[in-house]
């Protein structure tokens, strides 16, 4: 009997509530609408070392000149070099966060299926470029978030400013293809 009452009231609420609201205030406005592109406040762009890596033929990610960002769907090409045991391309991309302070921006990498042996790093704080050290022939990326490669599913809180992205090719790197997807939320 109790369930029946709740169900009845819920159904009534769900179906009738909009009707009740409309019925309470009857106002009518007309707005013209249009859709235009605008530069995003948070976006991916070529990093300070992009030109260097690109000049070496090691990295390519086309940037929309008008907005300065790399559009979704863009193919990012990066090459490891024959003969090298380890290779790092640092600060070749950046994520720019132009959202005014006071608002919270989180970015989450949803998919990061890079080819075997390739890992991606993002700097630990705004304005900090990635660096490296080499020990026993192995490159370690410095100034990286959590001192490790980017992983999927973990929201990263971004301060205002620029975060830098680099790639590390281990001695296991192989040719292949992959996908990088991320989304950001502003609240």
């Amino acid at each position: 009997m109790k369930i029946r009452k709740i169900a009845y009231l819920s159904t009534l609420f769900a179906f009738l509530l909009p009707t009740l609201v409309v019925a309470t205030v009857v106002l009518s406005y007309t707005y013209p609408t249009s859709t235009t592109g605008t530069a995003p406040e948070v976006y991916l762009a070529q990093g300070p070392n992009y030109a260097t890596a690109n000049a070496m033929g090691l990295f390519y990610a086309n940037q929309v000149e008008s907005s300065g960002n790399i559009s979704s769907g863009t193919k990012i090409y990066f090459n490891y070099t024959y003969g090298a045991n380890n290779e790092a391309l640092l600060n070749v991309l950046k994520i720019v966060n132009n959202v005014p302070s006071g608002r919270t921006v989180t970015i989450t990498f949803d998919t990061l299926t890079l080819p075997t042996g390739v890992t991606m790093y993002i700097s630990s704080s705004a304005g900090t470029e990635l660096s490296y050290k080499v020990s026993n022939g192995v490159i370690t990326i410095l100034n990286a978030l959590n001192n490790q490669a980017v992983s999927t599913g973990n929201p990263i809180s971004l301060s205002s400013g620029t975060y830098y992205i680099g790639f590390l090719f281990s001695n296991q790197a192989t040719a292949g293809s992959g996908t990088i997807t991320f989304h950001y939320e502003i609240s």
Partner: protein
Amino acid sequence: MHKFYKMVGAIAIILMLLVLIPSGSNSDVLITYKYSSITTGKVPCIQFNNSTNFDPYWLTNLNSYKNIAHMNLTSVWSQDIYTDDLGIVYWVDNYGYVIYSVNGNINYIGSPYPYNFSFAGSVVSLAVIDDSYVWYVALLTVYGYVFIYDMNTKMWFNATNVWGLNLQNVWKQYSSPWSSIVSNTLGDSNGFHELFIFTNLNGEVYAFDTTFNSTGGINNGGWWNSNPTSFKIVSTVAYYDERRNNIGHLFGVSYNGIVYKFQNGYWTTLVNSNLNGIMGISIGKSTDLPKRSTYFNNGYTLFIIQIFNGTTLYEYDRRNAIFKNYGGIFTIKGTNQAISFDLYNSYNNVNTWYILQTNGTIALSINNIATAWDYYNNFLFKYETSTALKIDSKCSLDFIGSLYYNSSIKSWNMYNFTIYFTSSNNLINLEFYYYWPTQQIVNPATETLLSSNNSILINFTYMPNMAFNSTFNFYLILKNQYPQNAIVYVYNFNINIVNHFNYIPI
């Protein structure tokens, strides 16, 4: 009816949630990006160029594969020693540099190779004919090329061409390394022919008679055996038993200690020495065996040496068919490589053994019984490679390179070992340094410029000493000069420093 209400209630709750969830999120903006990435291997603008190296065993695939960057670097080592008909001692390194000593006075002949001898291979053996007709210092290479230094004209000539030798064709056909050249030392004293006798690892034997036709005739020469065997002969010795009808003898020995005698065109087993690691065979005067126990009844018998440090000579006791210790330990300074006995002075009762060690040290016995030894110390000084490896840049950017030590096997048995980089602006930078006497290991990893469209040269200096075949691993780290923190390459080098021919299974 009860079920119906339940179902309607559930649908209603879901609808409420659908309406409420968006307003429950704190996000005002949610934007998703998706990128696809493609990784490919790239032929680098930095290329490793080994054309400056003249070592035929050099292998590198730095430009082809990832994570595989092995190199074999044939070092220089003293390879063979020979005492001629007049007691003059000659020795040669595997790069063909010949030195000789007349009564202790050292003279340099030099090498027949002006620079590049990869076509001929490293020198494996040396022999000399010094008689009234000719005075030839002959070098045999692993591929079967023969180069002669005419001591009278002070000129080198390519005997393969001038004499029409075809030993190199055996290499081409069977890949059987040539291993030994001897002359019939003193065999000419009674007017017999002076021959150079060449033997390869498979026991094929070719002789060239220089006596009456020094520019092409073979007389008593020619192919004495052209049927490959499985005997793996690494060293030979010839002897004319002038006191027994001037019969010529040729003996060979394998690394695993089997001594063979060459007779009527065939190698036959003389005796198994039961010694391993045999590098050289000679014929000398025994002072402790009765003449009935020596191979020849004039007191001369076969002697062999092992490669190992801390060993003695071994002499052949024919009656007991064994090789026994002779003399005292001579090998205190390096790896034993070759032996020669001074027959000329022995006939005046001065018995001297010369034992060459890979680091250039020569142990020479200073009494007739080989229990006391003197040394010519390290005539093979540290060797400087011309340019072991060249790194060419076709990049549009300048790079900085440094070398970092990784690991090694046996490298610390070398006397010294250094690696230098020559930068694009011609600065010679020390990258690594090792010095055995002080056990000093230094890796300054000096930053070296590899400018755009220019090169870095890698040079090694080393004295292998007791290193045998050693392995040295290092990293070459190249980073672009400007801007910093852009591109870093780490190349992994594995250098096998070969200190013996690969047919010596050590």
